[in-house]
């Protein structure tokens, strides 16, 4: 897959914002400097990826993981990044957990009725009629036929 040159660049607007927020108020940045930092950032990604990949290969893994990236930072002498990165990782994991639980809860609520149905069918396999089942069916099918006793 051939990447166009611009695909390997990061969006100017975001880069500019990050720079401005880092520099003291009122400090400007020349267009040339901003574009240079953007290129440097892309090079950084490549360097970090290559470094992280070495760690993955050492661990006989084909997939880069979070630890590989953290190890790469130390290797590249950016130890100062390690703590904030670990914090970001924790925050990300909490966020993912929260989302997972939320969607699992939704799924549970949706399935709850269906599940109760099938459980009851198992219990009352030998019986034709089961009060719970009747009640449930009545709730769900108010307008439909009545269950025979």
């Amino acid at each position, binding site marked *: 897959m051939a*990447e166009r040159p611009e*695909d*390997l*660049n*990061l*969006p100017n607007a*975001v880069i500019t*914002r*990050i*720079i401005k*927020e*880092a*520099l*003291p108020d*009122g*400090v*400007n*940045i*020349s267009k*040339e*400097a901003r574009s*240079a*930092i953007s*290129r*440097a*950032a*892309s*090079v*950084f*990604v*490549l360097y*970090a*990826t*290559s470094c*992280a*990949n070495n760690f993955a*290969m050492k661990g006989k893994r*084909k*997939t*880069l*993981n*979070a630890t*590989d*990236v*953290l190890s790469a*930072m130390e290797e*590249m*002498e*950016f130890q*100062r*990044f390690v703590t*904030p*990165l670990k914090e*970001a*990782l924790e*925050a*990300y*994991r909490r*966020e993912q957990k929260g*989302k997972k639980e939320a969607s699992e809860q939704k799924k549970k609520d949706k399935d709850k009725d269906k599940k109760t149905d099938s459980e009851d069918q198992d219990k009352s396999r030998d019986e034709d009629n089961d009060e719970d089942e009747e009640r449930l069916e009545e709730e769900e099918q108010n307008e439909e036929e009545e269950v025979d006793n």
Partner: protein
Amino acid sequence: MSGKMADVVVGKDKCGEQRLVSLPLSRIRVIMKSSPEVSSINQEALVLTAKATELFVQYLATYSYRHGSGKEKKVLTYSDLANTAEESETFQFLTDILPKKILASKYLKMLKEEKREEDEENDSDNESDHDEAES
């Protein structure tokens, strides 16, 4: 819809709170995948790389500004960055893409002076009028 990525991508939400990462993960991923030996990247590694890149941008900008001559002018210039690449060990991997620049006229002058010194060593003529632009 990339719901999961979108949440992590947005810089600030409506309340102005900082989101995890501002840089677009899809773009970071493209750059990472262009690296020859990489097979696959797990989502956490992608997020951390994006975050690390942001930290890097901040660090490069502030370091260059602090050490640069632009401090008095209240502007961060290209030469501040090139100086950083040359002088700081941490940023040395950037020297190729952030070369120092000199004016073309200055460079030509340097060439001329070198040539003149050579000629003076070889004795004889004053070739100060003999200008050539070497391409």
